[in-house]
């Protein structure tokens, strides 16, 4: 199948409709070339750059039509030709299925058309992700291939590298893998031990080392490998730096271990890869020698956003399956769906799917804007929110079926196992929370340092200014970022939610300031504080996404937009109170804060390396 997609996806047209959005449309065009503003980072300063996130990004009508043309066959393929149960059971994706995926062009979704790919934008990639996620193993195989495996060549490779490798990767003739993790180095890249040494003639690198948990490791032909290389820096001192290489299996010396037997995504191939004197020509260095860090970071930071749409796709399918069951199954002469606790589960699923979807497409849209957008923070937030939301929703869906859901006759247990990995790979959620909070803290800290120092010195002027502001804030309860009102970007039906968001955003800004005042750069060590900061920010971003999306939906009159309004108001209220609680916990000497105790419990348990308490049946006499 070949669908012609003659679109330059890097300049999607932002067509905007709706009266209340008009004002910002004109402003957007003025600075569309150079994007200097950021959204999530500025929230740390208590600023809401509404221009970044309002209106909700759109794709043009033509793009949408093409996308729909592409989506239909893919959907059909996944519904008819993919036997997920068999893939899970036999722990291998059958070759026919793989060929089908290749024919659909799913191995080169984001590879430009000139290299034989589909050349789709991030937004369109996210849309396809909704469907591929129906089978976890296939989704992971595809993601390992193109979201990280060949992404290095795509974003940092030179033209000859692209010309040499991309065409065959895009068709799926060659499969790519991303080799970063090592036995002794999970998230800590500094301990990468794989080494590349330059040969005598200076034309090759000899690669030696072992990489762990490589998705597609068993069948990948092209690998992006990160290794230590010796680099002479400007002080003419020799130093080890990380370099990225394109390694073909054909170079020799590459051996794959036995595939790991996993809890979920069993059909995907994960194994260990060992390089033994693999000869890599120096043309195959991605970027420059010693520049591997930036490459790895860029690949990882930009690959995550699609998890939101993938999770949403999965939950949408689960809602269909479970609501069918809940409506037909009778208990006490009433159908299951009439019970409040069952309804609660469906509401949870709908809310989560809605929020994930909104966050994913908002982020994808931001990434598709011209310029070099830095959406790594947003992408990380999408990943954290959607991986945790998926886990909860799948579990709830299974719960609706009760014992049936626990059996292998239904797909729920498989979904549950498959989606557990979402919280682990591409940076565990803990690490991403650290990333989210610390990146923002660094950004805010740079700007606030001067002010905080003045305060600490006891500069009367600054202190009074701050006290005055605090007094004003406490007297005048309303915070106004201009989301609502005359020139507002949020639809009036969402005013209340928007106000809640504004309140939280303002409170968050002042909390960040006080945290910086209190901890300074030692905040790196305060992981429990950072976790709360990240959680508040994720909630804020989620609120933004739903407000923006629903405003657009209402304004252009999408079908069932009233339901979206309902979901938005529900979610925002919920998130508002959660945020309030978290922000209260972040205050100094807050009685709600249990961190000291939590740390102490953990320390005592870990000192013993066992559960500390005596058995309740024990006696002393």
């Amino acid at each position, binding site marked *: 199948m070949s669908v012609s997609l003659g679109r330059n996806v890097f300049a999607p047209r932002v067509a905007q409709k709706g009266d209340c959005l008009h004002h910002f449309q004109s402003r957007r065009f003025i600075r569309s070339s150079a994007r200097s503003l950021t959204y999530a980072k500025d929230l740390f300063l208590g600023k809401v750059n509404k221009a970044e996130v309002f209106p909700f990004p759109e794709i043009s009508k033509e793009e949408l039509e093409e996308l729909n043309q592409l989506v239909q066959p893919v959907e059909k393929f996944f519904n008819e030709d993919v036997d997920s149960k068999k893939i899970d059971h036999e722990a291998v994706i059958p070759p026919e299925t793989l060929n089908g995926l290749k024919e659909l062009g799913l191995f080169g979704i984001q590879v430009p058309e000139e290299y034989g790919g589909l050349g789709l934008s991030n937004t369109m990639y996210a849309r396809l992700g909704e469907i591929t996620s129906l089978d976890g193993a296939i989704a992971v195989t595809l993601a390992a291939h193109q979201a990280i495996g060949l992404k290095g060549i795509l974003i940092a490779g030179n033209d000859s590298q692209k010309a040499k490798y991309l065409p065959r990767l895009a068709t799926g003739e060659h499969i790519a893998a991303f080799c*970063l993790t090592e036995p002794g180095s999970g*998230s800590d890249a500094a301990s990468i031990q794989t080494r590349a040494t330059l040969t005598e003639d200076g034309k090759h690198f000899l690669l030696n080392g072992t990489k762990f948990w490589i998705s597609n490791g068993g069948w990948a032909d092209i690998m992006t490998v990160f290794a230590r290389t010796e680099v002479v820096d400007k002080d003419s001192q020799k130093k080890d730096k990380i370099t990225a290489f394109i390694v073909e299996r054909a170079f020799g010396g590459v051996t794959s271990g036995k595939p790991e037997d996993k809890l979920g995504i069993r059909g995907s191939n994960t194994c260990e890869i060992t390089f033994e004197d693999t000869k890599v020509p120096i043309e195959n260095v991605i970027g420059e020698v010693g520049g591997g*860090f930036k490459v790895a970071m860029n690949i990882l930071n930009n690959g995550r956003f699609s998890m939101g749409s993938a999770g949403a796709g999965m939950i949408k399918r689960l809602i269909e399956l479970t609501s069918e069951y809940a409506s037909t199954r009778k208990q006490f002469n009433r159908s299951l769906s009439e019970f409040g606790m069952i309804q609660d589960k469906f509401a949870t699923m709908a809310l989560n799917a809605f929020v994930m979807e909104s966050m994913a497409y908002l982020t994808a849209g931001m990434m598709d804007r011209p310029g070099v957008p830095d959406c790594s923070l947003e992408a990380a937030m999408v990943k954290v929110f959607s991986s945790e939301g998926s886990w909860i929703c799948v579990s709830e869906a299974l719960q609706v079926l009760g014992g049936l859901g626990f059996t292998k006759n239904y797909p729920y247990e498989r979904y549950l196992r498959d989606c557990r990995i979402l919280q682990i790979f591409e940076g565990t959620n803990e690490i991403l929370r650290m990333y989210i909070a610390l990146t923002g803290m*660094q950004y805010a800290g740079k700007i606030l340092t001067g002010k905080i120092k003045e305060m600490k010195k006891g500069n009367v002027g600054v202190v009074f200014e701050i006290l005055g502001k605090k007094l004003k804030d406490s007297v005048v309860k309303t915070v106004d970022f201009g989301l609502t009102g005359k020139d507002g970007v949020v639809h009036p039906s969402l005013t209340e939610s928007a106000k809640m968001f504004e309140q939280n955003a303002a409170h968050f800004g002042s909390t960040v300031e006080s945290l910086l005042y209190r901890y300074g750069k030692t905040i790196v060590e305060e992981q429990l504080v950072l976790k709360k900061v990240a959680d508040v920010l994720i909630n804020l971003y989620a609120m933004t996404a739903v407000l923006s999306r629903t405003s657009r939906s209402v304004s252009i009159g999408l079908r069932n937009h009233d339901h979206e309004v309902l979901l938005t108001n529900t979610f925002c209220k919920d998130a508002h109170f959660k945020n309030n609680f978290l922000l209260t916990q972040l205050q100094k000497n807050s009685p709600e804060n249990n961190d000291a105790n939590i740390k102490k419990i953990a320390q005592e348990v870990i000192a013993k390396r066992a559960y500390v308490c005596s058995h309740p049946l024990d006696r002393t006499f």
Partner: protein
Amino acid sequence: MNAPRQLLRIQCIGCIARILGKPVQRVILPTGAHLQTPGSQHNYGQLLRPFHCSAVCSTSRPSRTQLEKTVEDETLNKDKSLVTHDDLFERAARDSKTKADFNRVVDVFSKKDIRRRGHVEFIYAALKKMPEFGVERDITVYNKLLDVFPKEVFMPRNFIQRMFNHYPRQQECGVQLLEQMENYGIMPNVETKVLLAQIFGEKSHPMRKYQRIMYWFPKFKHANPFPVPHVLPSDPVELARFSLTRIADDLDAKITIYQYPSTDITETGEEVMRPHIVGIQSPNQRSLLAKHNPCRPVFVEGPFPLWLRKTCVHYYLLRADPVPSEEKVEEEFDPEMMGPEQSLFYPQRLDLDLERDMGDDFRFDVDDVEEGPVYAMCMAGQADQVTLSQWISGLQETCPILGQIPTVFRLDSGPRELQTTSDAQQTPEQEVETDQITEEEPLHSQRVKQGSASVLRRPRVYP
């Protein structure tokens, strides 16, 4: 099983007595004569029986020992009653000192006279002799001793008796018995309580003592987070393993047995003892040792004492002097690997010019005293340099760098082998003394033992 019921019974009797205003025991108890306190040969019936004496009972027993005869003699010759009860034990202990022997003495005393004449003195004597017989930690023996007291007799029967110190000597003796239990960390059990209630009544001093013990003992039972068992392993390797893990409070630390104790016979027919060598080292210590500057020596020092209750063991350290400040290498800080925006997933440190606020700085101002690192510890069967160098060469297998480091042995002239209780407390002078006068050894050790016993008399709350 019987004990709580018995307790209840006593309380009932007390109630009835109070209601009726006269002693009812005589009426009730003979009917309940079948109710025996566990572990005791006596019952109320026996108590109340008129002057039949134990001689009759003892003749009915199949074997009459020498001991019993002496007791009988004593009983018959009442004018000789000044003979101390210590003598009873001394005589019983002539051939062996075991729990059975001790119990026999107590039995004989209980049987010989229905009135239990001189029981207070007997109990005091028995208490004193308990450690000798090795029963000082045996709750059943204490209960048996307590059972020697006649029942019911010392119970106050009216308010005046209750108000004043009724039978003070007996009560004091009971308290003394409980105190000895307390000192040895023995927790009374329900049987003790039943006996006390039968002997002294519910609100007597010994009962109060019992209640106090039962209040505090359970609370303090686990006060020591590092308990030492009463019976230490007899195998020196096991003992060394226990002691070393006790010193090195690190779950990662690994015990290595470099040599098991054995005896070799050389070609010339000489017996050569190969002492045990047991060492402990944690991974951190190993990596520290690997980083040690080979120009600076390491020291093998010891022996240092470690007391485990009454036993003293000795250990040796492999340590070095503190690294002088000019040699300290700052941990290489690689901005590429660690810097903000650089590490793969999140910044390891923030590039900010802000320190922690004073109000949130809960660190204590501590003056750190620089100490040299301790690289490993060991215990060995012999304290000579040869044995310890075997340990060092054993360590070299995991830390090859040790081969290049000069090793200095700084050994005190300590004991040559694991010490037993008796010689543990000897000073070097005493050691010389014992070498000279070998005949006096038993007596000497006796003295030391008494010394150690006096140490033990201090309150000890960890059973």
